[in-house]
């Protein structure tokens, strides 16, 4: 490699060092202030772009779709089935590689729909009930074929994100499973 390229490389190093010490804090501040999903800073020809996680690593998040119209981001079935207004996160969005749609978050996991159909909870899987991984929480009826909704982990049945009889799509979040605290586990 020529001297010139080596010199360029050391200049690159210096520039990147400065990016991390100066520009990233600026990005942090701006992101915090604006609530934007993406920010870009240019400096001396370098560009740094930060994209806020939007529930998956995909390039085009579903809230930035073509068309200026305010189309439903999820299907109408899901919108109707989401009375508590939680933003759907996780389930079914990270499973492009075939993993089942089971969302997880700190302190809780979510049982999600195994099919597109109508949801029916089990009567004995009320909020507060302790469950073990694999326990049946209800079913989704897909054209007369019941598909079991199971607990993705041990825990306690938490809030239901849909109502009995609601239309749900594949992978949709149905029931929160709170992790038992260590005290409870020992109890």
């Amino acid at each position, binding site marked *: 490699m020529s001297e010139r390229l080596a010199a360029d490389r050391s200049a690159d190093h210096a520039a990147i060092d400065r990016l991390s010490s100066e520009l990233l804090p600026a990005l942090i501040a701006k992101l915090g202030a604006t609530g934007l999903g993406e920010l870009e800073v240019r400096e001396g020809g370098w560009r740094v772009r930060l994209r806020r996680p939007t529930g998956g690593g995909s*390039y085009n*998040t579903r809230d930035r779709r073509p068309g200026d119209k305010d189309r439903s981001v999820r299907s109408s079935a899901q919108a109707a089935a989401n009375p508590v207004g939680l933003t759907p996160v996780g389930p079914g969005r990270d499973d492009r590689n075939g993993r089942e749609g089971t969302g997880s978050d700190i302190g809780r996991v979510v049982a999600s729909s195994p099919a597109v159909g109508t949801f029916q909870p089990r009567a004995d899987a009320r909020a507060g009930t302790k469950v073990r991984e694999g326990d049946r929480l209800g079913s989704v009826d897909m054209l007369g074929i019941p598909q079991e909704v199971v607990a993705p982990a041990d825990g306690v049945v938490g809030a239901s994100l849909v109502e009995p009889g609601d239309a749900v799509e594949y992978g949709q979040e149905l029931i929160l499973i709170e992790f038992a605290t260590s005290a409870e586990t020992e109890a």
Partner: protein
Amino acid sequence: MFRKVLIANRGEIAIRILRACRELGIETVVAYSTADRDSLPVQLADEAICIGPPDARRSYLLAPAVISAAMLTGCDAIHPGYGFLSEDEGFAEVVAAHDLTFIGPPAAILERFASKAGTRQLLGAHGLPTIPGSDGMLRDEMHALDEAERIGYPVLIKPSAGGGGKGMRMVRTGRELESALRVCRSEAKAAFGDDSLYLEKWLDENRHVEIQVAIDRYGHGVHLGDRDCSVQRRHQKILEEAPTPALSEAARADLAERALRAAIAAGYENVGTLEFLVDSVGSFFFIEINCRIQVEHPVTEMLTGIDLVATQIRIAAGEPLGFSQADVALRGHAIEFRINAEDPANGFRPGAGVVERYHAPGGPGVRVDSHLFSGYDVPPYYDSLLGKLIVWGPDRPSAIARSRVALDELVVDGLVTNVAIHQALLGNEAFLAGKMTTNLLDRVGSEAILAAAARA
């Protein structure tokens, strides 16, 4: 007319159907697998509903999921596109049983044309010459060998169900036949869930020519000219054009008219395609009928100005065709290039990954039907079609000249595509002379065609 249609497909055809629905004032719901969550049709649709995981058998091919999605979203019809459930008479029947309309021929008609052997018999009885073939499905190896002997080698093994080259193999000897039978059976079983096979006389230097028809519920129909799909790789079409350079104008008109008459007489309904082999002296033999919209339908749209998908939807809704043969005028020449994520320099190995940059060509006579966009992550689960470049010109040479420019302008960074084989074909003498046969790519070899183009 329908109020709301569920689009049970993906990729470019989902977008094509969506646009046709909108023009007809119909709302759209795109049913998608989790692998297609961020796809363009999902983004463009009025609504989208997830029906299953990436594995098509658990999503796009899962009839209960598709029908359940249609009912939950309040659709009154389902458009299956091509592939997947598009020619599945069982699916069409269940759709109808749930008071939904299957956009395509009704189940009973799909069933009538479900067996290729039966279809040949039926349309043969209505005046279409058919290619010599086995007497029904092959019962066993012995039956296959006997029938092949009677027909005369080479013969083509074909599956009764499906299409797209799976389960098909040309064999020149009894020994080849024996070993190919097993492969074809397992391929057909895997692809279509049906391992019935039959034999057909193989014409070494044949052309694939098809006739597009549209027939309404009331038996009123038109043909919309022909398409030449001779450029194939292992029975997979990669380039289609119209009109075919294989036949004189009079012969083309004769073929189209006979095809239409036979299809009406046999009770076909909706848009459909009758496929023929044309031999070196211009004789034609009916092969099969495709009871769906085809990948290559835009070629016909460019020539006729008629929206085939809208026509298909209107017929399925019970509307009369609304025009007659005299209203169909063909203008100029059109060529469609299937842009696939596959590497022609490496045995057409399919690829997947992120489209770093996408630029579609444009200008007069250039149409691109594609679901690509810059940043799109092409999933590895489905077929490799990235889109279709369709180029029109007042005549074949001008369409070819314009195609060269458009192919050169197309940019799909980040994926290897088969654009190089199209560019090479546009320099191939047999193609330029309009003399391509279905064995061109496999006989001459894609590598040789690419190499010749590199030398030029």
